[in-house]
Structures are given as C-alpha cells and as structure tokens.
C-alpha cells in the first residue's frame, strides 16, 4: 500500500509537472502565435500599402506619360512661322503665333524645342544655309524675350534642302520659307 502511494505520488508529480510543463508550453505557443500573426498582419498590411502606392505611382506615371504624349501631339501641331523671300524678320502674325507657342512652353516646362530654319529653292544653297539659321535665330531670340529659358532652345538650318512642298510655285515657296518647331521631352 505504502508502495502504491509512493507510485501514485510520483505519478501525481509527473502529471502535475507535465501539466506545468504543458501549461508552460501552451502559454508560450500562444504568445508565439500571437507574435507571428501580428508580424504577418503587419507585413501583409505593408505589402498591401506598398501595392497601393505602386499602383498609384504606375498610374501616375502612366497618366504623366499619356499627358506628355498628348502635349507632344499638341506641340506637333504647332503652326510654322513663315518668312518673306530673303528675309528673317518676324511678321506681326508670326509674333502672335510665337506668343501662343511661348505660352505653351511656359506652361509645359518639361519640353525642349529644336527650331528648324528652312528656305525656298530660289536662293543660293550655301547662302540659304545661313539664311535658314538666321530665321531660326530670329524665332529663338523672340522666344527668349518672351521668357523661355535659352537652354531649352536649339537652332538648326536645313537651308533649301528639305522643302515641305517640292513643287515650283509661289504657294510652295511661301510654305517652304518657314521655321518649324520640333518639340521634344527634356533630356535628363
């Protein structure tokens, strides 16, 4: 009997010890679980937030790109500035046109302009290379006066080499004596 008691005592001890052990373990596991969950949740939350930011950013970039595209298209339709034969001074209507272009450029700062100077076929070719340059310089200087940063403006003359209308009529010549705007996105 005394021996049985002893066994029971030991068993009780073992059981209670294991209870204590188990309880300890159980408690620990719960804490552990909670921690994990919190971390997971935080990570997920962060991920979700990140996703949200990314998609907004992408959307914004996409939108900006589309806007840029739209603006470039708008700029591609910029009216040419026309000059008289052997002249490079700006006519009144050219000044009006240029003010419009300048407003646009002031509103849309992320763009640069290549000013292409062209001539009709009637002059001397080499002289026309100079004349075309001079026409684009006139436009450049006027735009600078209207507040456009000089660093955004490049001139290039093609003389009479790239006519818009290759026919040999007064109308064609008038069309060909032009400064053409090529608007490009700013080089970073």
């Amino acid at each position, binding site marked *: 009997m005394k021996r049985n008691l002893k066994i029971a005592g030991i068993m009780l001890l073992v059981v209670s010890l294991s209870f204590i052990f188990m309880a300890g373990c159980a408690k620990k596991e719960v804490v552990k679980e909670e921690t994990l969950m919190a971390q997971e949740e935080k990570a997920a939350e962060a991920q979700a937030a990140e996703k949200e930011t990314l998609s907004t950013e992408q959307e914004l970039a996409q939108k900006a790109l589309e806007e840029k595209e739209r603006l470039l298209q708008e700029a591609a339709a910029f009216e040419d500035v026309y000059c008289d034969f*052997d002249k490079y001074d700006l006519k009144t209507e050219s000044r009006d046109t240029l003010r419009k272009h300048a407003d646009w450029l002031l509103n849309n700062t992320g763009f640069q302009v290549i000013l292409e100077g062209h001539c009709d*076929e009637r*002059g*001397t*070719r*080499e*002289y026309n*290379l*100079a*004349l075309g*340059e*001079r026409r684009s*310089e006139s436009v450049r200087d006027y735009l600078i006066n209207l507040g456009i940063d000089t660093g955004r403006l*490049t*001139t*290039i*003359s*093609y003389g009479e*080499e*790239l006519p818009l209308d*290759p026919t*040999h009529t007064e109308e064609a010549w008038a069309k060909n004596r032009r400064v053409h705007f090529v608007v490009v996105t700013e080089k970073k």
Partner: protein
Amino acid sequence: MRKIGLLIIITALLWSSPVWGKVYIDINAPAFQRFPVAIPDFKSLDEQDDTEKLSTKFSNSLAEALKMTGFFRVIDKNAFIENKDEAGITADTINFHDWSIIGAEFLIKGGFQYSNENLSIEFRLFGVVEGDLIVSKKYWGTLDEMKIMIQKFTGEILLALTGEPSVFGTKIAFTGKKGKTSDIYTINFDGSDLVKITNNKSLTVLPHWSHDGKQLAYTSYRRMNPDLYVMDLSNKEVKTISRFKGLNLSGPWSPDGSNILLTLSKDGNEEIYMLDLETKKLNRLTNDPAIDVSPTWSPDGSKIAFVSNRSGSPQIFVMNVDGSKVRRLTYEGRYNTSPSWSPKGKVIVYEGVTNGSFQLFSIADDGSNFVQLTFENGGCEYPTWSPDGRYVAFSSGEKGKIRICIINSNGLNLRVLHEEPGMEAIYPTWSPRLQLY
C-alpha cells in the same frame, strides 16, 4: 582610284624644239580663236597589220582630248589632201603646204608600235606655217595606258603653246543629293573615275580640297548638327574639325594649307572665321550683325572675298585676311553670291540673279571688267576655278536634275561633266593638280 603601276611610262624628248619661240597665245582673251589643228591617223611603225584599228583610235582619242580642253578646233579628216602612203611623220617627209591649204595651223603626227601587249607611241606637234617641230614625245606602256599617253601629250601641247599644261590630272569634288540625303563624290576632269567618298546617310555638303589634294573638308549633318569634318583621302579617316552649336560651314583651305575658312553661327549670327589647323586657333574675321558667309581666298592668301547682306541684300565684299578694309565689290543686281577667286589673278566669278535665274558673272577684284559668262536656261550656280585659271565648273539645271558643267573662263565651250538621273550634282569644287598617273 586607279593607280597605274604596271609599266612606268617613260617620256623622251625626241628632238629639241629650237624654232618655236615661246610667244604664248593668250587663250583667255575674248578674241581668242581656237587653234585649228589637223590630226591624221597614226602610222604603224613596225609595218604590222593594224588589226585593232589603233591608227584611227589614237588620232580620234587625241582629237577628243584636245577638244575637251576647249582650245582646239580639230579639222575634219575628210578635208585632208595629203597622200597618206607617201607622207611620213617627220618634218622632211611632210608637205606642209597640204596642211596650210586646208586651214590647219598645227599638225600632229603620230606613230606607234604594238606587240605582245606592249605599246609605244610617239607624237610630234608641228607648226604648219613654218614647218617647224614644236614638241615631240615618245611613251612606252600597255594598250590600257593609251589614254594616259594621250592626256600626257595633250598636256605637252598646251604647255608648248600656252605656257601651262592641261588639267587632265585634276578632279572635281561635288555633293550628290538623292532625296533627303547627300554625299561627296569625286570625278576626273575628263568625266571618268566617279567615286563616292562619304556614306553618311544624312546631308553632307560643301566639299573643299586641301592645298595638296590629299584631304577633303566638308560639312555633314550626321550628328544632327551641321559640323565640319576633314577626311584623309588615302585611308578615309575622318577627323571632326569644328562642332559648335549651329552652323559649321566648310570653306576653302588657305593657299599655303595652314588655315581653313569656315562660317560659324556660334556667337549668335553667321560670321566668317579662320581656323589654324596646326594650333587650332580660331580667328573671327567678320563682325557684323548681318549674314556673312561663302569666303574665298585671293591666290596670294592676302585677301578674302565673301558674301554679306549687310547692305540689305546678298552682295560680294572683299576684306584683308585679318578682317580689315572691308569693301563692297558688286553693285550690279540685287542678289550676288558664291564668289570664287581665280587662282591666277584678279578675277572673281560669282552667281547673280538676272531675269529670274542665276547666271555666272566675272568681275575684277577692283570692280572693273564686269562680264556675264553664262546664259543657260536652267541657271548656273556655285562656280569653281580650275587650278590653271582657264576653266570654271558649276552646277546647272532645274531642281531635281542638276548636273555639273565646265566652261572656259571666257564662258565658251560648255561641256557636261557629270549628269545622273535622280541626283542633284551641286557644290562642285576643283582640286589642285594631282599625281593621278
């Protein structure tokens, strides 16, 4: 470029020419009449059958070469009365009366030997009136080198009669524009050996020879700006010479080869500069808010003629090489451009508008002797002098079909040098004398 290297052509002075007093005829004078010359068929000297009809081929080729110079009127063979079988090719076997009676002032006799691909030709130029031998030469080579022998003797004839050899040993560089791009080409004076020099797939314009003919300067848009390059013709190596923002227009090299003139717009408008090719020092020569462009050197390198619109419309001006003493040269007409100063003196040719088209004019550097040189329907532009000052090449024709032509400096004897369907041949520039053969 074809190099003749198989057989060296040896020339020999067969007889000295003591009789011909060196009184050169001024072939540039307006009253100059072309030399009437008779060229009978050459004699086969080794009595062999002339199966390849060389006898006629040589006389005809020589006639063509002489006509090309613009200074000879070759008398029709049908007019000849000489007894071919009796007459020889030396003075003692020629009856000069047979030639003076048909109006010949000069007679060229030739003989040849041809066997096993080896060819020798001897040429003799006689003055018909005195019956004197003016110049004679013998050349040895192959049949392929016939053209060279004939061009060489043509040079001897011109040297003997005028004091200066022919320009068969020169080339003309030009811009060939097809559609929206153009490249530089070169071609020989006789229209042979067309070579495409650049392949830039962009606008490439304004070729200018170095003084030794070994390099070509030109302006190309290949990097999206009209920049100035120089190509070494021996290895096609290209150097960038000037890359300022805006225009970098190629201009002529100084007579001593040390400097090149160019037009730059880097300072806000078009000005003429001189670049020392050794030190890279850039000297601005013009200083005017107007357009200044198209410079050309006087032969001694002390003056420069150029185009400016400082007086309202484009006109030709002359200044000293340091930019001082600017004076206006042209007053006739509203639009005068593209001056080219004769390498032999005081004459400047240029293009000017008259009756709605461009024609060539010449004027002395003091403004005197104003003459209209051309009257072509399609117009004439961009004149360039031959190095002997006897010819002017230029571009002529309607847009889309522009060709290169050559005239004598008095405006006569127009010859088409190069014409190519679909190409505008523009900006011709004459080389100095080259060692072609």
